[in-house]
Structure formats: C-alpha cells, structure tokens
C-alpha cells in the first residue's frame, strides 16, 4: 500500500541544513495499524505529512497504491489526497463558521459529489458517530470529544484507504481519548490503513505494528 524507498527530507533553517528524515525505508500493507512514536523533533510528523502528500521528499521515492506519487503536481496530489487519504489532527481543524454536518460535508463538496448523495452520506456518518442531534451545532458548541468525532467523520467521508492521525488524543482527556482511539481502531477492521503518530507509549502500544523514531530515523520496529 505505502512504500517509501530511501526517503529523506531536509529543511533550510536560516543558513543551516536540518535533516528531518534520513533514508527512510518503509512498507505498510493495506489494512495495517501502525503507530509512530518518538520524542518531539524526531521527524514523526514530517513522515506523516510526507505520507499524506502535504509535503514532498527531498530525495527518495514514495509509492502509494502501486503508483509513484513522488513527483505529482499540485492538482494531482490534491486529487490523491481527496480520494485516498484522510487526516485527523490534534487540534481538530474544524471550520468554525460551519456546522458539524457542513464540516463533515466539506471533502464531499470539494470532490464535486452531487448534493443528494452528499446528504445521504453525511446523514449516515452523523448516525455512525452519534452526532445526529449535534448536526446543526457549530464547533464552539461541541465538546472536545464531539469535535474529534466530527473530524473523524469528515476524514472518512470520502472512504479513504489511508487514515493519518497526528496526536488525535492530544487535546482530549483520558476517557474521551480512549473513546476516540477505539473509533479509529474500528476503522482498521474495515480494511482502512491507520497510521497514528503519538508520543504516548500506552497509546502507541495498542497498534499491531510500532515504529520508534529518533533523529529522523526508524530505530526499531515491534509487532504485537
């Protein structure tokens, strides 16, 4: 599903060259549940952004679903993101002026899906995530857990093959965090590839496959 071949990413900060990722080789199969752990600055978010096509590698090759996506132009990248990748962020990133239902609808609107089908899909998602009675609430009227549920519903609205979650429980209390994680884990049972970035070993330990990163390199892998 995801195949990284000697992928590096370096930034220029001031007059210094900072290497965030160093020759990463990584294979992730479809339906895998992978957690990426490591201290801050170890490059785990950069790796996630690269996989999500929000960023480009400085060198190396990235293949997604068998196709080389390293050198796609902006429009092609956007199309891949729209069709194959879903994001869940630590700070939810809901559009504040839109209702929960409209936030969930957003990827469908951007993809140009007809309005009748959109309504059906949004209804189903609201139902699935227990948000039906919150459909017309704006994000500032929702609790943290509800916000993240809206964000997950939005991320899955286009039925992506890969779900990328960057510290999805970072802004939530323990109980709500566990609830959110179990929602994400349910998705892996539907054959969605889930990649979870966290610095919480307890959370990361739940994944079938765990990657540990230090200084831009994967130092160890454990499988359970």
């Amino acid at each position, binding site marked *: 599903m995801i195949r990284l071949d000697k992928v590096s990413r370096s930034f220029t900060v001031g007059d210094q060259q900072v290497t965030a990722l160093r020759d990463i080789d990584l294979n992730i199969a479809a339906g895998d549940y992978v957690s990426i752990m490591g201290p801050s600055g170890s490059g785990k978010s950069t790796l996630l952004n690269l996989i999500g096509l929000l960023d480009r590698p400085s060198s190396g090759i990235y293949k997604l679903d068998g196709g080389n996506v390293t050198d796609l132009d*902006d429009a092609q990248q956007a199309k891949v993101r729209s069709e194959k990748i879903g994001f869940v962020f630590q700070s939810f990133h809901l559009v*504040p002026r839109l209702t929960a239902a409209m936030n969930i609808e957003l990827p469908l609107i951007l993809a140009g899906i007809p309005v009748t089908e959109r309504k059906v899909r949004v209804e189903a998602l609201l139902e699935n995530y227990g948000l039906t009675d919150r459909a017309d609430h704006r994000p500032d009227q929702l609790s943290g857990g509800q916000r993240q549920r809206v964000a997950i519903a939005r991320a899955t609205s286009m039925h992506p093959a890969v779900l990328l979650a960057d510290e999805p429980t970072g802004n939530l209390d323990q109980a709500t965090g566990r609830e959110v994680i179990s929602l994400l884990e349910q998705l892996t049972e539907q054959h969605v590839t889930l990649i979870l970035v966290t610095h919480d070993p307890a959370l990361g330990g739940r994944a079938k496959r765990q990657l540990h990163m230090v200084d831009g390199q994967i130092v160890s892998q454990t499988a359970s």
Partner: protein
Amino acid sequence: MKLIDVVQFAAASLGGSRARTLLMILAMSIGVASVLILTALGEGARLYVVNQFSSLGTNLVLVFPGRTETAGFGPGMLLGQIPRELSLDDAEALLKSRAVKRIAPLTLGSSQISRDALNREVIVLGSTSDLLEVRHMSLALGQFLPAGQTGESVCVLGAKIRRELFGNESAVGAWVRLGDRRFRVIGVMAGQGESMGFNTDEIVIVPVAAAHMLFNTTGLFRILIEAKSRDAIEQAKKDAETILFARHNNERDVTVVTQDAVLATFDRILRALTLAVGGIAAISLSVAGILIMNVMLIAVSQRVQEIGLLKALGAPAAQIRKLFFTEAILLSSVGSAVGLIIGEAGVLVIAKIYPSLPVATPWWAVLAAIGISLVTGVSFSVWPARRAARLDPVTALASR
C-alpha cells in the same frame, strides 16, 4: 467542486465576517452610486442645454453683423466698429436661396413702455411675421405681427408685460406708448419663461420697420434663417455667405453660424465635463477596489488554517484561488447592485428637487460603473487569492 458549491462556500465565508463584508459592500456601492449620480447630473446639464437650443427653433442658421476674427488683430476691434451693418434688404435677399425656408430679421432696443400711469423699461424686438414660426414661439391671445415689412404701429406683448400693464383687463385692442410713439396691442405671447438667457415674457415685439423708426436705426441685430430641412442647413449657410458677400462689395463682414455648430460645441464641452466628473467618481471606485484587496489580504491571513485544511482535504491550489475570486466577485456584484439602487434613488431625488433639469443616468455610465467595480474587485483580489493558493499546507495547518 461544483459552481453552486463554490458560490455557496464563498457566500458563507463572507457571511462569517458580517461587519467586514457590509463595510466593503458599502464602499463599493458608494463608488458605483457616485458614478451614476455625477454622470446623471452631467448628462442632465447637457440635455438641458440641448433642449434650450432646440426650443429656439429647428434647422436654424444665424447671421451676425461683423466678423469674428479668431486669429490676428483687426483695426476694427480697436475702434469697436462694425464695417457694414446688416440691412433689411440683406435679409430679403437671403430668400433667394433655395435652401432657405423662411427668415426673420431681428432688431433690438430698449425703451419705456407706458399705459396711463403705469410704465416700465422694456426690451423691444423688431421683426416680421415669420418670427413666430422660425423661433417656435406661441401666441396666447390675438394675432402676431402682420405679414410683410410694414411700419404699422402695432405690438405684441410678452406675458409678464401684459400682466404688469393690464392686470385682469383685456389688452388686445388697447393702446400703449413706446418711447414717443403709440402702438396698438394686437396680441399677447404665451408665457414661455427663460430660454438661453432671453426671457420672452418680458419683451414687446413690433414690426421691424416700426422698430427702426423708434430707435432711428437701419441696421439689424441678427437674421434668423430657417433652412428647408436638416440636410439643407449647410447649403443655407453657404448661400447666405455668398449672397451677403456679393451684396457687401465682396467683403466678408458677416458671421454665419449654424445652430447645430453652436449646439455641437456645447454638446462636446458638456459631454467632456460629464466624462471628467464620471472619471473622478470612478477613482473612488478603484479606491473601493484597493479596500477589497486590503480586506482580502486580512481574510487570507486570518484563514490560513482553513486554507491549509482545505488543501489537506483535497483542494488544489486552483480551487483555493477560485474560492477567493468568487468572494471578490460576490462582493463587487452585490456592491454594484446596492450602488445601482442608491444611485437611481439619488437621481430620483435630484429630479424631484430640480424638475427643470432632465437628469437621467446614461446607459454607458451604468455599464461603466458595474464594469469598473467588477474589474477592480476581481483584479485587486488576484494577489490575495494567489497568496492563499500558494500557502504551504504543513505550515498553514501548524499556524495559530
């Protein structure tokens, strides 16, 4: 992304910051309204002058004694003299031209008019019976001057003169005294009011020969020629010049102008004025455009996270640009619609206050105002839209 969704999304984000949106619409609409009102005023002034001219008569050619030198300095100017005056025979001779339909000689002077104990100063116009037709005047009572060049002592009173001298009594048939002569009133002019600074309500019209006797002159102040048709105007002018050239010992000492030429000059001047005033108003429109740019830039920096999110959700750069463009187009079209309403309302108010001014927004001003507001709105949002589209999604999402 479907067009309707683009518009809805843009409208929703405009609705998200209501005060800002309203202010921008206000700025745009004031610009559009000022273009409309100012050009309407300019056009009104132009139409007013045009109407005034055509109320003087149609297909008119005017003959003045003396020649206006546009270049150089003639000795006559120093002495303020006219080489040769226009005579009644000159006027009669003009009828020989086949392009001329009728003529009306005019002589002018001022005199005391009195009836019993009432008297006042009055402008006396000496002319012939054709004046009524040539000059598009109308009679309220009685009849106009008798045909031919008579020296009969009859007169036609202006409406206001009649009112002042006779009040509610009947004027026709009564006698009035003009200078040292007695004239019988044979008619009263209909009230016309002012036209081109010449109030026909306050004049007395007498036969041209009688006026010559009254003022002891032989010259004419002016000859009005009515050409047979619009196409004959130029021919009538040429004929008048040739005839008078021959009669005045081959000297060009008269000035012949067509009413059209005078009108065209006024028309040009006033149209230029309208354009200038409209142009100034258009500047305020482009200021509104800069305001839109400013606010769009603020909107981009306030919505950096949202732009990053849209990119992460699969919106390509082109789509982000389109969204911001649509916002600008919505703003400027709503602004120009509101401006149209304000502008037309303003024109209506002006028309109520000055009923004599034919104010109406010219169609080209409406098109220009809407066009300029759309073009400024869109062109001033190019930069903000590009800036939004170029944002790097990773940094955009990470920003606060």
